[in-house]
């Protein structure tokens, strides 16, 4: 049985915070915790296909959202994932008032620094679980 924690970002395309969610998750699953975590395409989850349900249903999931719509958390929950942590990019961003994080296309150096912080938070949670 695959025990990797599923880490799913919103990847919102309209604001930098969606890119920050995406990049933080990718940093976590590719660099920080490749043996304990993996991501699943949120667009695939939205399809509701049987194969993606099987990947998510009953598994520990961490969602990372860039706006209050909480698309990742809602869609993972609807698909049967066990959301053990809902991370909100804006919670971390609030601690960095006045900084420019980049655009929905490209992060600035400040944006990269903040996604590293978020990735560390995600990794800590993964290490608690696994």
């Amino acid at each position, binding site marked *: 049985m695959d025990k990797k924690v599923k880490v*799913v970002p919103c990847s919102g395309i309209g604001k930098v915070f969606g890119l920050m969610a995406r990049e933080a998750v990718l940093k976590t699953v590719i660099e920080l915790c490749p043996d304990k975590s993996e991501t699943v*395409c949120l*667009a695939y989850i939205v399809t509701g296909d049987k194969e993606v349900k099987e990947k998510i249903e009953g598994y520990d999931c961490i969602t990372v959202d860039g*706006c209050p719509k909480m698309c990742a958390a809602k869609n993972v929950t609807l698909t049967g994932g066990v959301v053990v942590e809902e991370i909100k990019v804006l919670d971390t961003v609030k601690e960095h008032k006045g900084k420019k994080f980049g655009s929905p*296309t490209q992060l600035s150096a400040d944006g990269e620094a903040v996604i590293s912080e978020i990735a560390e938070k995600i990794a800590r949670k993964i290490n608690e679980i696994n």
Partner: protein
Amino acid sequence: MSVLKVGVLSCSGEECLGGTISRLATRKVLEELKFIDTVTLCLPLYLAGGEEERNFAKVFPTISVDGCDKLCAKRSTEKFSGKISGSIDVSKIIGNENALNTKIVRNKDLKDEHRQMIDQVTDEIVKMIGSISPDAYSGKSFHGCGCGSE
């Protein structure tokens, strides 16, 4: 007066390079295309949002941009929103091996060859936008993606 716009909807898949290319090519069209207005929507809002988001493809002639042949953006749009006006499968443009690359997914890891792939996909989106019939416009209005973008 309603402004005529074309919807471009990316899968933005997180598991492979094709998703990154679909996202960045869509962003490039939104930012750089001058001859017609374009608008996008976060795909998961079909379920997490409301009726306005689900009406997206009924309001705009919409092109889906998918990173792999699962065609999640196309299928979800047709399932939850409405008929699309065109569909792009990035894996058909950059090749399956590139599209399904799981090592290079982050923006910071992209090299010149990947930037060329983004340009190729952007060109295909622009071509497809150019082929949309003016009759496809509904004349209805949309107040922007729920995440706050326009």
